[in-house]
């Protein structure tokens, strides 16, 4: 009976100590990884800084101007070339369209059967309610 207790204790001892041993090595390993990753981040940030400086250097205005002069037929902007949206002329509409533009007519849905064609009032449409009233009077 007693040896069982001893064996149990010994087993527990071995398990716990080996567990701790592994844990400690794992922590060391992770610490090393962390250090590596941090070093990599630092290197990458430095590389980004270098690339940013390179980008700024390549985008110097004189460089860009030389390139545009080479590839694009651009001249100084003359005042007449600058315009805003308001300067655009208003679109001309034909008179027949403007006559029915008073009221927007909903488009017919193709699936719906229109039972009755409502005749347009002779003087043009005015209000959406006008049609209904007109029909009731009929």
């Amino acid at each position, binding site marked *: 009976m007693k040896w069982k207790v001893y064996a149990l204790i010994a087993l527990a001892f071995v398990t716990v100590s080996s567990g701790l041993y592994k844990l400690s090595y794992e922590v060391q390993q992770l610490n090393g990884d962390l250090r590596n990753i*941090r070093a990599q981040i630092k290197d990458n*940030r*430095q590389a980004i*800084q270098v690339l940013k400086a390179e*980008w700024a*250097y390549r985008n110097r*205005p004189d460089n860009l101007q030389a390139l545009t002069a080479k590839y694009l037929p651009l001249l100084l902007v003359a*005042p007449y070339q600058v315009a805003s949206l308001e300067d655009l002329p208003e679109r001309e509409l034909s008179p027949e369209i403007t006559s029915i533009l008073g009221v927007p007519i909903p488009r017919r849905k193709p699936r719906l059967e229109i039972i009755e064609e409502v005749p347009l009032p002779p003087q043009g449409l005015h209000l959406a309610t006008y049609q209904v009233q007109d029909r009731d009077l009929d």
Partner: protein
Amino acid sequence: MVEQQTIRLEGSAKEALELGRNRLVVAGVLFAFCFFVLAGRLVGLALTGIGQETDEHVAEVRPKPTQVVSGVRAPIYDRSGKLLAVTLDTVSLFADPSKVLDAREAAEKIVSVIEDLDPEQLERKLAANRNFTWVKRHITPTEQKAVNDLGIPGLFFREEEKRVYPMGPLVSHLVGYTDIDNKGIAGIEKYFDDQLETTDDKVGEPLYLSVDLRVQYALREELSRFMTVFQAIGASGIVMDVNSAEILGMVSLPDFDPNRPQDFPKDSKFNKATLGVYEMGSTFKAFTTAMALENRTVSLRDGYDATDPIRIAGFRIRDDHPKKRWLSVPEIFMYSSNIGTAKMAEDVGPKRHRAFLDKLGLLRRPVVELPEVGAPILPPRWNTLETMTISYGHGLSVSPLQLSSAISSIVNGGVFHNPTVLRRDVGEEVSGKRVVSKKTSNVLRRLMRLVVEKGTGRNANAEGYLVGGKTGTAEKAVNGRYKRDALVTSFVSAFPMNNPRYVVLAMLDEPKGNASTHGFRSAGWTTAPIVARLISRIGPILGVKPVDEESDAIRKAMHIPVYSREKKLATF
């Protein structure tokens, strides 16, 4: 089977045995208790972790976070975030000559990848009887790789930091530069050295300047073009926002490359725009006229007789473009009459003149975030004679920066703001103090427009941008005498004049006339065209919409009666 025998002890032997056993049990229980406690603690630790005493303990054990942006100086950006200065980790190449096997071969190989080295000098270095010699400081990553690929024994790299200015000479005077230890020694780098620097207890803070790289480039290009055309020995220019007093562009030529400042002479590092003070000439007439109108000593309808030169205290005040007749105030301004302006200032008097120029910040060292700021040179006494000469810009030396901030306060509705080279936030309230009334400011806008439309500044007209300005041609004072053949020509302008947004100042040092200017070298011929070209370039960039200058609305807004009494020839 062996019969089990029990030994029985009696008497003293039994007692001794009993005692021994008791002692053993006591010791055993004690040890068992100790081990039990230890085992319990062990299990407890394994299960729950370290428990309460974590923080301090773990902080000691935990690896220190490596500073990700290692102790570098913070970058400097322009107003739109374009990089102007940055610190890079570079490598320097050094050699241990005692480990170099064949100095000649090594030198040849190195020169084949780093071209700007002298092979013979390098060979001598590598053959020397030493343990250390620099081959080249701050080599590029490409060079580093190339050298590494050569695989020459005895060559090593050392990591270093270097301040890099990708824009080269473009913003040199404004940004300044640092010494070999990355300490700012000029410009923004010096003024904001503490803020940019990264030390053990703080990380440097990046700076956003008010300068707009596109404007700066246009300004520098136009100035250097015209500097060459007129063979000037120097040039400077400023573009400034009139409402926030932000400096969008500031150039002083000749300039230098801050990446290698030691290769440039000292005078190219001199910032003409802030540190240099000059007698500005007729541009001061804008201040005199504003002052006279503000103090109501004269109205637009009035004028002065400019027929004869003024003689005072042995001096003679003459006109450069003499009209030899009575001139109204707008005419005096338009034709840049020294005689008329001097009389106008005389009526105001030296005391009020001085106080007015002081309000415009022309008599004190301007406040701006740069170490190189020049103080104005005031005359030793300030009486009627001085007032008369200063009225047309002689006798008082100010820097271009002071001139442009004073002009912007005149045209922006009459409020003076301290100039700044740092970006202001959109909608930030800018404090200022009123120097002239809105009405005077409005009249001066029209007068300055008149100069460009009909007067001495016609060459500055950038069509569509309603440029208004004032020419200024001053003789250089050398050893207490004015040199007739050395001029400083300047043109200070604002646009668009119906609602001024930007002030543009251009200045040439000792321009020479040429065939295209019919030999003239006054400001109207030499510096006004700079402004015209510059404004048509930067107008679209700054979002100023060109207007039709001939339209009725603009004509009405810019109208100013001239009240001329010129006798027109009778026409039939």
